């Protein structure tokens, strides 16, 4: 029987980062991954000769080399990665597009402030006060209590349309809750999107994963693929190790799990009673590859947060996917374009149960419907943003691929195909089982940067500083 100082379940962003930290300080660490590759929710795949990223729209928390005290800088130092290794290129500009109003933002908050002054002149003073509040707030304090963010922000912003517009990107890029978010999470997202901004590592998510895998190799930590944890073993509510699908038992006095909170608690043996809710937010994603670039179509933004209704309904729709809103990501439109084809990704909020209920032929037909819908959506967007340009034709498409909430579930084993985890987070990483620690999404830090910082901080706290729980 194999014995380790610590077991890390999952080689997604948080698990990879946690394993690196533990390995750096000579902990004997066992990193288990059910899939055949790393990345989890932010992985990659190939179709023919095309290389596709599952998740990467943008790396949040953009910084220039040498900027101090930034979350990305902390992360890079903790993992001993030089800034240049990311080959990060900043966004051009992104757009929040509502029926009658639009706001453009860049990686410089002054730009958004001016946009607000122009479009909502009575609101700009409140927005500036909100900025001060956000800057001064200690959002990463593990003891922060839950506070509904919209209530707080309404003290500063009275125009409901502007409020919805500010919240739209923040919700869809990181809220496990429907319609609202925790104020700490609001501040995290506000800083990562509006104060720091978007960047793209050259080559997409593979660059990040290659760097992390390279570090593990240097440290002599092996990633064990196709190792599915089926039971988390305990004795008197203290973790003792894990059991794999193969029947193998691995022992360790400390287990870090990135599977998600309900997913983890479901595997505890002997079983424990818990009522951790499964997250309801999942998405469809349509990926288009064109021979022409988005700029040729008149689309010059990096990411467009589009919403055709006056209110932004960030919640699970009754239908397969929510038709009114979409995120349109144009990875060519970073300062440096690293792709030979034009790539357009469209994301909708989606209903996992509705997709799950479809049988095979119906599922295929509905994916085709989604494609048709998205193609029209794209042309409507072109018409609104670049009326002088011609519509794109389906015959212009070199390649397309679509995925749904059930695809997310199939490759990441997140219950309900949920992307932002359970609405219930465990900020200190603790579970009812001693020394069973939650990392990543359900510790409350998500996105690529957030998940890695979570893995790092939990490994530091419980693995290296020996905080007893």
């Amino acid at each position, binding site marked *: 029987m194999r014995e380790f100082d610590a077991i890390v379940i999952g080689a997604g962003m948080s698990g990879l980062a946690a394993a690196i930290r533990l390995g750096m*300080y000579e902990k004997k660490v066992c990193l288990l991954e059910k899939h055949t590759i790393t990345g989890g929710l932010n992985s990659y795949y190939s179709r023919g000769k095309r290389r596709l990223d599952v998740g990467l729209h943008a790396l949040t928390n953009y910084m220039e080399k*040498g900027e*101090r*005290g930034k979350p990305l*800088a902390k992360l890079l*130092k903790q993992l*001993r990665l030089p*800034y240049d290794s990311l080959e990060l290129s900043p966004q051009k500009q992104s757009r929040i597009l509502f029926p009658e109003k639009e706001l453009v933002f860049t990686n410089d908050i002054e730009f958004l402030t001016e946009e607000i002054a122009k479009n909502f002149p009575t609101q700009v003073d409140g927005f500036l006060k909100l900025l001060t509040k956000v800057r001064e707030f200690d959002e990463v304090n593990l003891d922060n209590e839950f506070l509904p963010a919209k209530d707080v922000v309404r003290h500063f912003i009275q125009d409901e349309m502007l409020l919805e517009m500010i919240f739209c990107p923040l919700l869809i890029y990181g809220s496990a809750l429907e319609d609202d978010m925790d104020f700490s999470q609001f501040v995290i997202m506000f800083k990562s999107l509006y104060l720091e901004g978007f960047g793209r590592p050259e080559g997409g998510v593979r660059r990040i994963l290659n760097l992390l895998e390279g570090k593990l190799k240097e440290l002599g930590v092996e990633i064990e693929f196709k190792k599915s944890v089926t039971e988390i073993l305990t004795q008197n509510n203290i973790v003792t190790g894990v059991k794999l699908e193969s029947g193998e038992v691995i022992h360790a006095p400390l287990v870090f799990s990135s599977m998600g909170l309900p997913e983890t608690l479901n595997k505890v043996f002997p079983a424990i009673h818990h009522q951790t809710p499964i997250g309801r937010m999942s998405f469809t994603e349509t990926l288009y590859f064109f021979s022409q670039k988005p700029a040729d179509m008149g689309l010059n933004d990096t990411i467009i947060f589009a919403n055709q209704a006056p209110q932004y309904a960030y919640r699970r729709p009754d239908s397969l996917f929510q038709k009114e809103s979409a995120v349109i990501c144009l990875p060519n439109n970073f300062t440096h374009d690293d792709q030979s084809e034009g790539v357009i990704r469209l994301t909708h909020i989606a209903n996992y149960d509705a997709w799950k209920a479809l049988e095979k032929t119906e599922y295929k037909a509905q994916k085709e419907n989604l494609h048709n819908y998205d193609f029209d959506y794209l042309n409507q967007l072109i018409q609104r943003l670049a009326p002088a340009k011609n519509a794109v034709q389906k015959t212009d498409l070199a390649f397309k691929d679509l995925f749904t909430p059930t695809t997310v579930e199939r490759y990441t084993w997140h219950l309900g195909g949920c992307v932002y985890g359970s609405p219930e987070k465990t900020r200190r990483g603790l579970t009812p089982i001693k020394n069973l620690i939650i990392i990543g999404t359900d510790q409350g830090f998500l996105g690529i940067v957030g998940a890695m910082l979570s893995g790092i901080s939990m490994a530091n706290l419980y693995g*290296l*500083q020996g905080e007893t729980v």
Partner: protein
Amino acid sequence: MQPTEVRQIVLDIIADIALDDDVTKIDDSIALRDQLDLDSMDFLDIVMELKKQHKVEVPQEDYPKLATMESCVTYLTPKFQALQ
């Protein structure tokens, strides 16, 4: 071990952590925090590297003694000498 050697050891550790900072221009009398992008997580790493690479232990109550390069050298030199 001489203070200059201890200084070099500390410098190497810092250079390894603050990969993007220029450590050749450190002023030994000014707080490291004010010259380099180092936060409390990084100071913990310095402590852990000292232990891992050189078996030198720094108890938590002594962390303030690592504030400047000068104070690092003053504090750590006897510890390194005690090892020999």
